[in-house]
């Protein structure tokens, strides 16, 4: 009964989505405010209905209602409650329901927080959101209905892939979708702006917080996914350039470009049509990610069960949404005039450089991901593009990005003074050089590339600090004056500093863990000891343990350093009898400067157990850095300019020489 109610709520949500997608558009075109007002109510109603529908499916999972086909395929009574709940979105149908739940939530938020938007803009934004929702609810109801019943109900379910029964992966999809779907708001704003035919600084100011929220969430989602791969797949790697990983990375890259170009629109009233294009492309890439994962056109470990009908449907949605908006773009964008030319050496110039490089990086990853498919369709042969391609193309593109990240924020708007900035960055330059040389001395000449990368990370971190010190006139003015200045720097500026510092931490983490990983593979019996990077690890043996729905073999290592006990590592190998699968659970001890990482494999007490021990320097920094980046985004999001005092739209734009707002 509850399941049918959920199904019915979804059908009602479809009707409301259609209303939300049509009435406000007509209202905005004809100036009827009652039609425009439909959007707000429909958005709130649609969200409520989808939430009911989602709750109904969750209920079916929690109570293990095996008359629902979706529950049978993905759940089991012996599964812990947490994974019964996360099992709701660990499959195609349920994850699509989560997708539209988040879409509905964003629609409701626009309706709720959008009171300061001009009525016609809000109506159009909500209408675009409604149309996207309509398409996807239709998709669920016709091709992927999670509420389908099965008769007779089997006594128990088939269980969930044990690899997915993990806290890291359980919360990876919600964050990822929040990011993907969050970009739909930027997309909706872009389409609304194209319909209205104008983009101005106020528009950019409205778009930015939504983009920022989506970006933060996507960053966290990608970081969670890579963290999971690191500790669950058990070979110490954290990123594999898998097509599905790339599918989430692509919107992240173009979303990052969008965040930066929106600043130029806001401050300089330029780069308008480019920013609109980025907003459209970012969401299109999100949709493409959804398509790639679910259509089976690329092979990947992440791919859901494939069904050509679903693939065609999502492809149609992608073509209608992206194609429609890009056609609109072709018609309207030429008339969006920018606010005059600007000098290459300036803040906006550096942001353009950032955009060029990020767009190139996006194109590179895009090509690398889809090249096998393109060749296949042309019957030009089958190839696979592996990590070497991405390391050779993507990494060199990031070098100038990081160099410019140090300089850009110090340049003035309109006309920057590059020699002046460089001379003020001498400290950062010196520090970078010192780190590079120090690394070379400590690690040897063969680490020359890694030393360069560490120097880059140091450069970025130091230049972020120098930029802040310059702003508050640290040591050049009395301390009270510096304190006063520090408190008055806008939060968005702090947000930038924190996020950039986060990237510096990530770069250091990726470099060190890739370049200086120590790996020991041994056959060990109880009592054996090995040395790993200065740690002495004594193997104490293996014992069997019983989990809620698995049997585990747990090895134990006593880790000592210079005679004193550091920790005990207990790597596991879990066998899940229901799913007939085994997983490895790496044991990780982190000092925050390095991870000790232990994995246990096959073996027995007589012959010994095969074990794999790693020392991964700085690897925790990758995720710490990602969290710092997200914090930076949140700090920027809390900037008061994003909440109150959003300026009224200017009736007439002042001339191109409009002064930039004072910082």
């Amino acid at each position: 009964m509850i399941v049918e109610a959920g199904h019915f709520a979804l059908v009602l949500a479809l009707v409301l989505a259609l209303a939300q997608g049509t009435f406000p558009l007509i209202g905005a075109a004809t100036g009827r405010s009652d039609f425009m007002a439909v959007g707000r109510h429909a958005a709130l109603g649609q969200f409520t209905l989808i939430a009911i529908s989602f709750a109904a499916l969750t209920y079916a999972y929690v109570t293990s209602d095996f008359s629902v086909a979706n529950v049978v395929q993905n759940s089991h009574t012996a599964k812990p409650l947490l994974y019964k709940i996360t099992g709701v979105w660990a499959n195609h149908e349920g994850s699509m329901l989560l997708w539209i739940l988040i879409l509905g939530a964003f629609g409701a938020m626009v309706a709720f927080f959008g009171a300061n938007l001009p009525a016609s803009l809000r109506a159009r934004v909500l209408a675009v959101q409604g149309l996207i929702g309509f398409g996807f609810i239709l998709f669920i109801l016709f091709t992927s209905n999670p509420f389908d019943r099965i008769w007779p109900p089997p006594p128990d379910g088939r269980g969930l892939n044990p690899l997915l029964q993990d806290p890291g992966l359980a919360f990876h999809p919600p964050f990822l979708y929040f990011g993907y779907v969050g970009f739909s708001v930027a997309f909706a704003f872009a389409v609304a702006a194209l319909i209205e035919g104008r983009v101005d600084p106020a528009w950019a100011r409205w778009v930015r917080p939504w983009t920022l929220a989506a970006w933060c969430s996507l960053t966290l989602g990608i970081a969670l996914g890579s963290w999971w791969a690191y500790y669950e797949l058990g070979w110490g790697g954290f990123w594999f350039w898998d097509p599905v990983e790339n599918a989430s990375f692509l919107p992240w890259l173009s979303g990052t470009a969008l965040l930066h170009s929106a600043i130029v629109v806001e401050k300089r009233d330029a780069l308008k049509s480019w920013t609109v294009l980025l907003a459209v492309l970012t969401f299109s890439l999100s949709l493409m990610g959804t398509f790639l994962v679910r259509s089976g056109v690329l092979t990947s470990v992440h791919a859901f069960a494939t069904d050509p009908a679903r693939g065609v449907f999502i492809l149609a949605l992608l073509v209608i949404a992206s194609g429609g908006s890009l056609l609109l773009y072709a018609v309207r964008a030429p008339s969006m005039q920018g606010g005059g030319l600007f000098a290459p050496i300036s803040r906006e110039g550096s942001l353009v450089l950032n955009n060029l490089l990020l767009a190139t990086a996006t194109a590179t990853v895009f090509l690398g991901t889809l090249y096998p498919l393109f060749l296949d369709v042309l019957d030009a042969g089958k190839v696979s593009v592996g990590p070497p391609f991405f390391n050779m193309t993507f990494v060199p593109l990031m070098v100038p990005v990081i160099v410019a990240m140090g300089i850009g924020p110090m340049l003035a708007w309109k006309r920057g003074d590059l020699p002046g900035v460089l001379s003020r960055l001498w400290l950062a330059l010196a520090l970078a050089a010192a780190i590079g040389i120090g690394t070379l001395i400590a690690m040897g000449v063969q680490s020359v590339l890694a030393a360069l990368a560490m120097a880059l990370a140091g450069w970025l971190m130091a230049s972020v600090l120098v930029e802040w010190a310059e702003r508050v006139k640290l040591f050049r003015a009395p301390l009270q004056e510096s304190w006063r200045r520090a408190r008055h720097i806008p939060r968005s500026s702090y947000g930038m500093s924190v996020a950039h510092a986060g990237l510096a931490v990530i770069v250091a983490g990726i470099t060190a863990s890739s370049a200086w990983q120590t790996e020991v593979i041994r056959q060990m019996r109880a009592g054996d000891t090995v040395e790993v990077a200065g740690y002495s690890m004594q193997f104490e043996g293996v014992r069997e343990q019983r989990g809620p729905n698995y049997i585990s073999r747990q090895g134990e290592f006593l880790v000592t350093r210079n005679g004193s006990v550091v920790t005990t590592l207990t790597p596991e190998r879990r066998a899940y009898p229901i799913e007939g699968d085994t997983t490895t659970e790496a044991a990780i001890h982190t000092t925050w400067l390095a991870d000790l990482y232990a994995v246990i494999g096959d073996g027995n007490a007589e012959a010994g157990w095969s074990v794999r021990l790693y020392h991964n320097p700085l690897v925790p920094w990758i995720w710490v850095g990602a969290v710092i980046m997200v914090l930076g985004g949140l700090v920027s999001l809390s900037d008061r300019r994003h909440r109150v005092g959003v300026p009224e739209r200017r009736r007439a734009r002042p001339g191109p020489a409009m002064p930039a707002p004072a910082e």
Partner: protein
Amino acid sequence: MVRRLAYLLPFLLLVIVAGYFLFGLERDPGELPSALLGKPVPAFDLPALTGATASEDGMNTDDLTSGRDVKLVNFFASWCVPCRAEHPLITRLAGMDGVRMFGINYKDAPEDATGWLQRLGDPYERIGADRTGRAGIEWGIYGVPETFVVDADGIVRMRHAGPLTPEIVERELLPLIEELQR
């Protein structure tokens, strides 16, 4: 006018990409035509993966043309995520009666492959180490994992590119093995 056309470029690119997707949808990336189907296995001779548990002497064409069992040849690598995903299935298939599982370790560092097998278990009767990818060319594979079914006479009967899934095993692989065993 030219400037206006430039704004149409993103749309045209989308149309092209969508076209590729549409044609890509009709192709199951796992179902590949193989020039080898119905033909004897190609000639190859691969050294052992030093240190691998079950198979010390490498693997060559003779291993696949002798004996009366159905043989499965699985290309794998430790750096390949889908290989990790299909590993439990490979293990299960290797345990079946009248089926012999052979592995070709493709473009992999021997120590990585050895560690991978030790950790996950080694389902292969013999393993050939194809460090250069030469055997991969002979077999015409386009990536890892790929799995071939070879009958008792050493004739290639099926090729599957990409990770095996329970559906593919149930629907295609097991019926074929049953047929070949008769």
